């Protein structure tokens, strides 16, 4: 069940908003669940999404500037993406959303939530970037080779091997270059954080779950504790023998933590 195999085909949709055509996947039914990807767009309906879709109306956009979405002329920083998503939520008429963000997407989810929690029911951060914990460096994704970066994502190197063995096509190369450009656009300096975010995390007034791999080499688990200190109502699930992508590396544990949290706090 773990890994990258796409188990179900879900139709890709597009929406033109704020002058930018964005591409997104949407499947399942139930309460809405918006998943915000990290430095790379979600290539397809991954197993963890299919399982979330058993209970939720799951929406997985490629951020403006990423994957199959256009690069908008207004994309200068992470705040631009946050305001875009507030428009996106409004445009789709989403309410009582379970918002999940991984890595850069976790940072983005925080930027959205400090501005507006009215449409949110819960917030889940997975290996989230966005803040700086003095003395605990995140890895510099911009100086790593694609192979080193892939290896650093996982505890289990078999998954890294599997990911590195995925076929390289012109389309995947193009998406990668686009992703890399847009991550740099919003996260190059300062690297992967917003110096003004930590000041306002106390505004997040929805139940928040922090999911971290105990062996996350990109954003070390000490960051989970820091988010827990800064956001008022949190609980933390540290997943053993797991790297930066618990939803891919340990989907059972990830889904158990998310499902339990949503049942208790967000039903």
């Amino acid at each position: 069940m773990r890994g990258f195999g796409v188990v179900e085909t879900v139709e890709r949709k597009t929406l033109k908003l704020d002058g930018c055509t964005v591409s997104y996947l949407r499947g399942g039914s139930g309460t809405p669940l918006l998943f915000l990807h990290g430095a790379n767009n979600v290539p397809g309906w991954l197993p963890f999404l299919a399982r979330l879709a058993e209970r939720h109306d799951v929406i997985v956009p490629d951020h403006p500037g990423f994957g199959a979405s256009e690069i908008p002329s207004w994309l200068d920083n992470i705040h631009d993406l946050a305001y875009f998503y507030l428009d996106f939520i409004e445009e789709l008429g989403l309410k009582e959303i379970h918002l999940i963000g991984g890595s850069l997407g976790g940072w983005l989810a925080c930027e959205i939530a400090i501005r507006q929690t009215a449409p949110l029911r819960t917030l889940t951060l997975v290996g989230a970037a966005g803040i700086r914990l003095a003395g605990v460096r995140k890895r510099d994704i911009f100086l790593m080779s694609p192979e080193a970066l892939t290896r650093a994502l996982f505890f289990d190197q078999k998954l890294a091997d599997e990911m590195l063995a995925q076929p390289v096509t012109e389309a995947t190369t193009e998406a990668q270059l686009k992703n890399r450009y847009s991550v740099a656009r919003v996260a190059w300096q300062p690297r992967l954080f917003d110096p003004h975010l930590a000041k306002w995390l106390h505004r997040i007034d929805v139940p928040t779950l922090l999911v971290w791999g105990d062996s996350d080499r990109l954003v070390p688990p000490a960051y989970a504790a820091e988010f827990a200190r800064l956001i008022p109502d949190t609980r933390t699930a540290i997943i053993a023998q797991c790297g930066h992508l618990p939803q891919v590396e340990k989907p059972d544990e990830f889904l158990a933590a998310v499902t339990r949290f949503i049942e208790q706090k967000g039903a």
Partner: protein
Amino acid sequence: MKFMLFHLMPYAYLDLNYTDKYESAWVTLPNTYFDPEKGHELYERYLGELELGDQMGFDAIGVNEHHQNAYGLMPIPSVIAGALSRKIKGKLAVLGRALPLLNNPLVVAEEFSMLDQLTGGRLIAGFVRGIGGEYHSWGANPTESHERFLEAHDLILRAWTEPGPFHFEGKHYDFEYVNLWPRPYQKPHPPVWIPSSGSIETVMWAAQHKYTYLQTYSPVAAVKKNLEQYKIEAQKAGYTATPEQMGWMAPIYVAETDERALAEAKPHIEAFANKFLKKPFEMRLPPGYVSMKSLKGVMQAKVSQTVDRTAEEILASGSFICGSVETVRNTLLERQRDMGYGHQLCLMQFGTLPADLTRKNMELFTTRVMPFLRERIGAEAAAIA
């Protein structure tokens, strides 16, 4: 044909075995590899070489900017230019200041105005974007590189030419009071040169502004392609490019014979190319530094600087010129005739090349090669006129 002595001021004492432990002489090579006392000795030596070059008859002396590396020890090139300004008689070129790295590019307008004043109008002002690694070292966003370069350029040109104070309103820079003291000596401003490795956007932009385009260290095929492009862009902009608007920077080594030249220069050519220039892809081409289209081309070509090349291979590409007086004369004459550029920038010290060989190189070049080329190319130009 004008000749400029150009220097990079490398840390020639670099332990070349650093590659056993580190990927590059840039960004992350620990500065414990730098010995401050040897550093002082090198600055003394290199400043002496540049002063000597002026006395030996080079038309201009050129310095440049690179940050946090062993390849070039002039992070603030105007310090070196300032040290030279009252010693040399020829032109003084700073090629160039890396504008997008700066949060306040007015500092460049100020530095260059001061240097133009100190030299009584002998300054050549170079503007560059900086190279990939420097966006890591200085924390400048490479995706903003082009737009910041253009905006900083506009700010500097206006600061030099418009009566102040005025309000500069840009996207990246907004300054309430732009009011430059001192104003530059030259009117309307020092000549602007654009050194580049040849991105199409830069070639086009330089031609449109009638700025002198300077091709940096490159294989001869790339030099030709970019200079031809410059001429095309000039035609599109409604004029014919003159030789004075085009230049090429090449490392040059002259010795008594071809064999001796290669034997003496070989280890230093290889150190320059394989040790001092060595950079992984992620350092060389950070996201946004070049257009997505160029980047795709580079990736598809699988161009890699990680494979070491021999001096013979490097010479074959034409990026380095090395040989007897005869060989160097003929090579440069042929290149100039073929490409029609008017400025030859000569890197006469490269990598680990020691002081004695550098001096011999400069002597042979300025006494045997430079006068010959001046005469021949001058005569050919006169004949055409």
